[in-house]
């Protein structure tokens, strides 16, 4: 179901958030490449297989202004990883650079959180690169804060 969202600034036309369809793959690849500077067609094709076929608890949402896709957000319900009760995980969010600072990211975030709530979970989580203050600032602005987990890693030297 598509939902209309009024733009908070009232400066631009309304945005529609809808579930992604298989035909959105090329647009998502292009949006991601525009932001990251790296085209990852094979990766997004695999992600579409996982997220776009309506499986319960998986959400790949597209924001459209007019007929143009201007952003997306992806997440899913995960349970009992590291003892964590079921929660919503957001692992990708993207807003076309020219569309930023108009509340579009907030619209996408609110839309996926609404789906998480409807699925019965009470927490939304994500993981971010520490050297990406722009994305971290965005999630902070949505009210996210440090959670009960900490990420560790080890370099696997040969």
């Amino acid at each position, binding site marked *: 179901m598509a939902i209309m969202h009024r733009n908070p600034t009232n400066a631009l036309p309304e945005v529609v958030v809808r579930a992604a369809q298989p035909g959105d793959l090329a647009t998502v690849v292009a949006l991601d490449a525009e932001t990251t500077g790296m085209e990852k067609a094979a990766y997004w094709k695999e992600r579409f297989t996982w997220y776009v076929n309506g499986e319960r608890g998986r959400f790949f949402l597209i924001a459209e202004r007019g007929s143009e896709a201007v952003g997306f957000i992806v997440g899913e319900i995960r349970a009992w990883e590291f003892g964590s009760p079921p929660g919503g995980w957001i692992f990708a969010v993207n807003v076309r650079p020219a569309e930023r*600072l108009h509340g579009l990211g907030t619209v996408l975030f609110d839309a996926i959180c609404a789906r998480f709530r409807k699925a019965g979970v009470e927490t939304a989580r994500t993981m971010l690169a*520490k*050297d990406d*203050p722009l994305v*971290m*600032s965005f*999630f*902070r*602005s949505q*009210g996210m804060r*440090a959670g009960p987990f900490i990420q560790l890693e080890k370099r696997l030297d040969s």
Partner: protein
Amino acid sequence: MRLQTATRIAIHAVLELASDPGSQISAAQIAERFDISVNHLAKVLRTLGRAGLVEALRGVRGGYRFRGNAKRVTLLDIIKLFEDIGSDGDDSREPGSHTREGRALRRVLAEFDDTARATLSSISVATMLMLVGQEPPDPAPDPSAAPRAPRGARPRWPA
């Protein structure tokens, strides 16, 4: 983590001004609101002005106003005007810093610094204002309390 007095004053001042970006607020009003020395606040405001975060307006209705982008100016932007926060620093004069133990300790402490920098660089003025709005209102001043000394004469946060 403790911030230096000037840094805390700067954050309070920026939040006060950014909470009402269309208006001009005097240094005396800010000092009264946060119970801080006007003299110390004036020095802090000059530093913030040089950094382009606040603007001083002269005249009868003069005062200060926030002139940054509240969604883009972060706590780290403000803090680093006043102190060297979370930098790796030069610990070469610390005891044992050139030993294996000293180098290992430096790596562990660098994790704290990295996390501190990442956290402070991710919290914008707008996000701070949102967090402020989630706090319960400040308690009303006690009318029976003794009158306070003139501002500037009794700095509560000495430099």
